[in-house]
């Protein structure tokens, strides 16, 4: 997998996470503009990134999401639960695609349907934009008169080719691409873009206005626009120009205009016939017939009135067409654009707003009636105003001034197709600025590199520990005290540096628990909605840090616990009300550091666990025997839920209740040297407390001696060290025992456990060294020969043939080069 794709995947995951998070937050603050902007930015960037690769499925979904959010951002659509649900679904789909890409470097073809459906469902929430316009490109009805006269410039060969393709069933389109002036600074090359247009038949570069003199020419401002004749479909063109939809107008070309016989200079009649064909051109320019001489006012106004009549008649005719082609929306817009232009020429602002209102109504209802009605009622007034001498030719002339294509393009953008242009505005808005969001000052480093550092520092610690032995040898073997002292001095310096370095590397591996906490809002929301419960999630101490491995292995157990709490712990609102509790349950997840351990508590104020039920269940399932049934107290009983095969839920749901779960939680936590305890008060709630080491890398080990050999016992297991006089030992049946602080503690000799044929040695006062260890909830005394120091070391698992030796959990290298075996206390007793 190439690095770019790898980074894309890792970023996508972050973005998806961010999007889910923001959506959650928006539930609490639906009108927070900052959140919406951030959300939009995330979706937008993710979409942009996906566009770098050929993942159209992903881009399609994100594009739809982006459109939707753009409208939410502009306040056109209100944020709603449904909207959040669909967007979350969409993000899930994107995540699945990411998984696909990770596995196979491409998106499975079967996703295409999913993504189309998802995009469809997202777009269904957008009231105005029809779903068949995936990449909205502004349709500029006004561009036709400006662009099409150039048809006459199309050379014969291209024209014939166009006609040939047209007869072959291809639709012809005229594209007018007017790049923004500073497009060069964005790295665009409009000429290249124009040359690469799909289905290009002919194209020409035209200056927007007369080019300035060479001395005044600014080479870095784009002064050209491009006219293109292409046989590509509108969808293809929309897709091709999707980054510059506001700079492009696409107009279907009526093939008749290409026929040599009709390619005369464009006049009103042709425009009308074109319009009557359902052609999205406007007769926008028509009211001023170019031939109209201004010298004779009467003559002119009569001609204008006649022309007006023809225009209006044509519009009426169009509106009365009762076929329902898919472009009927465009046709309506075109008619409205003509009428608006006429009203504007007449200076009738009221009429403009009336027409626009009528158009909006017609577009949403799909009926032409309102526009037709307006045409009938407003017609007289309009004609009167336009043909009256007070409508001076200058005023009317103002419209052909829309001739320079860029201004006509702009005018058209405001007049026509409000829905489309609005949608594309939403996308374009602030694109560049937002892509450059400030990046966090952090590095992404492959974990393997950190692990290597970790190993190296481990070796350094070991070789550092060799120095004291060297000092000792210098003194005892060679008798140079001076040198020995100096070595010790150096050692303390190296020791300090190594300690700091080790600490620094540990810090690098530290991760905040927020890494796992951040997924809980979503989880809790989804589950509680599914269960019909109202839950308020409180997260505390998200900044608490622990080693990456610890944090990662904690994720699954925590999810289990949270699910259990939601499913079994918290009650439904009705039950809670009946118990006199607040309807909304509270689930608190709290992390805190206590000495060298991280403690995570999951607390709910639900119905708690009934110890009697647990005891009964455990007894039924044979987990405890009858004697234990009477003996164990409530706290112990509650902790039985961690035993394998115990499920208290009467009904198995898809969330929990299959009897796996809590025991999996316990084994997962124990695997990383953690402990888990549960406390519950019936009717008041349950609290589960997980305690974990900060780091797994360094294990604190107590070194003990037995029969001349050294063994390490993890400090986690050690309870205390005592010396017991031989006389105080009792023998109960076959087992040695002693009374310690009023408790009977069974004693076992380490030598016996390891199969070493030697008796424990007592010291000069006839006392035996006893190491009290904690294993499987019981306390046991191990008889050893002596205690040594406690050291922190990096434990290496036993490999190869030795991995079968379960008595040892691993080995470590000591400073003097010897190997220390670490006992697996649970296994040997």
């Amino acid at each position, binding site marked *: 997998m190439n690095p770019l794709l790898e980074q894309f995947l890792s970023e996508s995951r972050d973005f998806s996470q961010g999007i889910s998070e923001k959506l959650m937050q928006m539930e609490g603050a639906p009108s927070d503009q900052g959140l919406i902007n951030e959300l939009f930015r995330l979706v937008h960037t993710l979409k942009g990134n996906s566009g770098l690769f050929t993942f159209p499925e992903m881009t399609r979904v994100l594009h739809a999401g982006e459109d939707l959010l753009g409208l939410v951002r502009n306040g056109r659509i209100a944020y709603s639960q449904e909207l959040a649900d669909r967007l979350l679904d969409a993000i899930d789909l994107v995540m699945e695609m990411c998984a696909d890409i990770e596995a196979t470097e491409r998106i499975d073809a079967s996703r295409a349907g999913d993504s189309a459906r998802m995009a469809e469902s997202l777009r269904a929430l957008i009231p105005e934009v029809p779903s068949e316009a995936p990449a909205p490109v502004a349709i500029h009805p006004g561009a036709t008169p400006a662009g099409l006269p150039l048809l006459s410039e199309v050379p014969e060969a291209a024209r014939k080719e166009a006609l040939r393709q047209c007869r072959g069933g291809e639709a012809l389109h005229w594209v007018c691409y007017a790049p923004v002036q500073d497009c060069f600074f964005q790295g665009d090359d409009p000429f290249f873009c124009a040359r690469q247009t799909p289905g290009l038949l002919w194209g020409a570069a*035209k200056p927007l206005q007369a080019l300035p003199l060479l001395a005044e020419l600014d080479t870095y401002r784009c002064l050209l626009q491009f006219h293109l004749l292409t046989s590509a479909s509108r969808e293809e063109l929309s897709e091709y120009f999707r980054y510059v939809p506001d700079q492009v107008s696409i107009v279907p070309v009526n093939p008749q205009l290409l026929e040599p016989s009709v390619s005369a200079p464009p006049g009103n009649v042709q425009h009308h016939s074109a319009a009557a064909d359902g052609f999205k051109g406007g007769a926008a320019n028509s009211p001023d017939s170019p031939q109209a001489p201004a010298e004779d006012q009467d003559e002119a106004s009569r001609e204008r009135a006649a022309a007006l009549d023809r225009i209006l008649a044509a519009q009426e005719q169009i509106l009365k067409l009762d076929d329902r082609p898919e472009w009927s929306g465009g046709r309506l817009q075109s008619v409205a654009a003509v009428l608006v232009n006429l009203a504007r020429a007449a200076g009738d602002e009221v009429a403009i707003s009336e027409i626009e209102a009528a158009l909006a109504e017609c577009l949403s209802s799909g009926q032409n009636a309102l526009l037709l009605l307006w045409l009938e009622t407003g017609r007289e007034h309009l004609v009167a105003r336009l043909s009256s001498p007070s409508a001076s030719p200058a005023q009317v002339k103002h419209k052909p001034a829309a001739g320079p294509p860029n201004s006509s393009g702009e005018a058209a953008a405001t007049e026509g197709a409000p829905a489309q242009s609005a949608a594309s505005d939403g996308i374009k808005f602030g694109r560049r600025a937002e892509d450059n969001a400030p990046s966090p000052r952090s590095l992404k480093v492959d974990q393997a590199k950190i692990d290597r550092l970790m190993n190296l520092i481990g070796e350094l610690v070991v070789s550092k520990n060799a120095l004291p032995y060297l000092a000792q040898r210098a003194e005892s073997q060679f008798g140079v005290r001076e040198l020995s002292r100096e070595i010790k001095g150096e050692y303390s310096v190296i020791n300090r540096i190594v300690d700091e370095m080790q600490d620094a590397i540990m810090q690098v591996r530290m991760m905040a628990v927020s890494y796992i906490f951040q997924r809980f809002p979503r989880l809790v929301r989804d589950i509680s909605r599914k269960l019909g419960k109202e839950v308020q999630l409180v997260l505390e101490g998200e900044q608490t840090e622990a080693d990456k491995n610890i944090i990662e292995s904690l994720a699954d157990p925590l999810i289990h616990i949270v699910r259990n709490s939601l499913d079994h712990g918290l009650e439904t609102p009705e039950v809670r009300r009946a118990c006199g509790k607040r309807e909304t349950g509270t689930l608190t997840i709290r992390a805190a550091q206590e000495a060298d351990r991280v403690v995570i508590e999951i607390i709910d104020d639900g119905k708690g666990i009934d110890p009697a039920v647990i005891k009964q269940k455990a007894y039924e399932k044979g987990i405890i025997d009858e004697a234990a049934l009477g003996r164990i107290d409530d706290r112990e009983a509650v902790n039985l839920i961690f035993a394998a095969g115990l499920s208290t839920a009467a009904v198995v749901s898809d969330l929990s209740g299959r009897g796996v779960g809590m025991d999996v939680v316990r084994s997962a936590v124990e695997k990383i040297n953690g402990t888990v305890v549960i406390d519950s008060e019936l009717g008041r709630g349950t609290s589960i407390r997980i305690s974990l080491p900060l780091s797994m890398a360094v294990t604190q080990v107590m070194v003990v001696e037995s029969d001349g050999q050294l063994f390490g016992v993890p400090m986690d297991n050690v309870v205390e060290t005592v010396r017991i006089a031989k006389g105080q030992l009792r023998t109960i049946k076959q087992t040695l025992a002693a009374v310690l602080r009023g408790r009977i503690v069974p004693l076992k000799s380490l030598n016996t456990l390891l199969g070493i044929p030697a008796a424990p040695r007592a010291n000069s006062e006839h006392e035996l060294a006893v190491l009290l260890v904690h294993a499987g909830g019981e306390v046991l005394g191990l008889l050893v020969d002596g205690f040594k120091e406690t050291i922190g070391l990096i434990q290496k698992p036993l490999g190869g043939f030795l991995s079968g030796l379960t008595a040892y959990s691993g080995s470590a290298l000591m400073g003097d080069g010897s190997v220390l075996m670490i006992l697996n206390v649970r296994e040997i007793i």
Partner: protein
Amino acid sequence: MPIEFKKNRAVFHDVVVVEEAEGLLDWLQNKPAAKVDLFACRHVHTANLQVLMAARPEIARWPEDMELRAWLESALKPAS
């Protein structure tokens, strides 16, 4: 070097990028009678195109690439 400026002739090679436009403009301003050789050119950036359109130098050779030639001819032929 996408544009090779000879004594009285600018020879375009391959793809002429946006950075060339300023130099080309300068050069054409100082040599109004200069000719431009486009034969080996495959693409000119829009910025260069508009310099050529504004300066209208005499074209010594049109591009070998027929498609580009059609574009440039329609933009640079004095007839239009």
